[in-house]
C-alpha cells in the first residue's frame, strides 16, 4: 500500500514536471483504446440509426440544401482564389515571407468524456495520419483548440476554453493584439491584458493573430460579449464567447500551415 502510494506520487511528479512517462501512457492506451471505442458506440450507432431510418423526403431536402450551400461556397471560393493570388503577388513585391497555404485534414471526435476538470477531446487521427503536437484544430466556424498529445491512432485536443490554454488573438476591426485565456467554462474566454482605455466593444470579432507560430493567422476565434471598465482597476474585464461549437462539434479540421520556416516548438501554455 505504501509502495503503491509512493510510486503513484512519484509518477505524478514526473508526469507533471517532465514528459518522461509518455511511452508508458502510450503503452497503456493500447489497452484502453478498445474500451474507448466501446464507450463511443452508443453515440455513433445512434447517429447511424437516425441516418438510416430517416425518410427519403428528409434526405432529399437535406441534399437540396447542401447543394445550395455548396454552390454558394463555391462562389465565394472563386473570389478567394483571386484574392489569394493577389496577396501572393503583393507579398512578392514586398519581399516578405511567403505563406503558401494551409493543408487541412478532417478528423472525427471520438465520443467519450474525459476528466471533467479539463476541457479536452479525443479525435480519431493520430501519428498514422501525420498529426503533430501543437497542431491547430478548427471546426466549421472557428478555432477549437490545439493537439497536445499524439497516440498511434488517436490524439488529444486541448480546447481554447481550458484554463491552461492561452491563444494569441487580434481584434478583426482594428488589429488590436491580445491574448485570449480559457476560463474552464465551455462558452467563455477571458481577455485579461487589455487596459481600460483600449478600443474594444461588445460584438467585436477576435481572429487568430498567428503570433507564437502555432495557429495560422486570420481564423475566427470568438466574439466579445462583455466589456466592463472599472475605474479603480488597471485592466478592463473583457469576456468573449467562442464562435466554435465546442459542445457540439462532431467533425473537426486539423490545419497545417505550409511555410518556408518550421513551426516554433514551444507550446503556448500559461505557466502556473
Amino acid at each position, binding site marked *: 500500500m505504501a509502495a503503491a502510494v509512493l510510486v503513484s506520487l512519484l509518477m505524478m511528479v514526473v508526469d507533471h514536471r517532465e514528459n518522461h512517462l509518455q511511452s508508458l501512457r502510450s503503452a497503456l492506451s493500447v489497452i484502453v483504446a478498445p474500451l474507448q471505442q466501446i464507450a463511443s458506440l452508443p453515440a455513433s450507432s445512434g447517429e447511424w440509426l437516425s441516418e438510416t431510418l430517416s425518410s427519403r423526403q428528409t434526405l432529399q431536402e437535406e441534399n437540396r440544401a447542401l447543394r445550395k450551400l455548396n454552390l454558394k461556397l463555391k462562389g465565394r471560393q472563386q473570389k478567394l482564389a483571386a484574392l489569394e493570388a493577389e496577396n501572393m503577388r503583393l507579398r512578392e513585391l514586398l519581399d516578405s515571407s511567403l505563406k503558401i497555404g494551409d493543408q487541412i485534414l478532417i478528423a472525427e471526435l471520438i465520443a467519450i468524456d*474525459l476528466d471533467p476538470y479539463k476541457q479536452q477531446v479525443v479525435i480519431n487521427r493520430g501519428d498514422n495520419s501525420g498529426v503533430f503536437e501543437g497542431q491547430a484544430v478548427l471546426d466549421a466556424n472557428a478555432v477549437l483548440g490545439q493537439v497536445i498529445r499524439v497516440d498511434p491512432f488517436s490524439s488529444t485536443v486541448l480546447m481554447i476554453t481550458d484554463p491552461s490554454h492561452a491563444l494569441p488573438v487580434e481584434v478583426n476591426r482594428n488589429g488590436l493584439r491580445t491574448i485570449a485565456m480559457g476560463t474552464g467554462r465551455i462558452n467563455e474566454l477571458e481577455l485579461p491584458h487589455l487596459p481600460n482605455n483600449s478600443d474594444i466593444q461588445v460584438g467585436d470579432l477576435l481572429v487568430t493573430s498567428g503570433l507564437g507560430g502555432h495557429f495560422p493567422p486570420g481564423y475566427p476565434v470568438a466574439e466579445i460579449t462583455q466589456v466592463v471598465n472599472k475605474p479603480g482597476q488597471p485592466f478592463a474585464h473583457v469576456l468573449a464567447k467562442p464562435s466554435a461549437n465546442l459542445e457540439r462539434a462532431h467533425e473537426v479540421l486539423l490545419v497545417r500551415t505550409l511555410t518556408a520556416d518550421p513551426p516554433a516548438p514551444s507550446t503556448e501554455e500559461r505557466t*502556473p
Partner: protein
Amino acid sequence: MTVIPHRGGLIIIASFVLALVLTSLPLPEWIRPFRPAWCSLVLIYWCIAAPQRVGVGVGWFVGLLVDVMTNTLLGQHAMELAITAFIAVKLHQRIRLFPLWQQAFGVLLLLLLEEVLSTIVMGAIHRPASALSYWASPFIGMLLWPWIYIILRDLRRRFKVS
C-alpha cells in the same frame, strides 16, 4: 487443508471493463458532474467480497487505466484507488456484516476521501478547484451502492467467484 483454486477471474475483469466503459461514456454536459465513480464502486465490492483476489495492486492498476482513459495526471486515480482498496480490504470483515444502508455510508466516506485526494492533487498542480456540483458524485455513488452490491453479489454466486 486443500488449496481452493481461484475461479471466475473473467467475471472480475468483465466488471472492471464495464466500469471503465461507463467512466468515459459520453453524457450531456449538465449531467456529467453526477457521474458516479464506477471503478471505485466495483473495486470496493470486490475488495469486500474477494479480498484474497482483489486488493491494492488491482486497485492501483485499474486507477492507472482510469488515468490514461480520462487523461488525468498519471498516478492520480491510481493513488486514490490504491488507498480505497487498502481501507476496504482492511475492513472487509466488518463491512460485510453491516446492513446495506450502513455499508452505503461507509462507501460514501471512501468516495468522499477519493474526492478530497483528487482536490488536493488538483491544487498541488495549480488546476482550478472543481465546481461544487462535482461533490454530488459520491452521494450518487452511495445511492447506487445497494444495487451494485446486489447485482455483483448475484453474479459472484452464480459464477462461484472465489
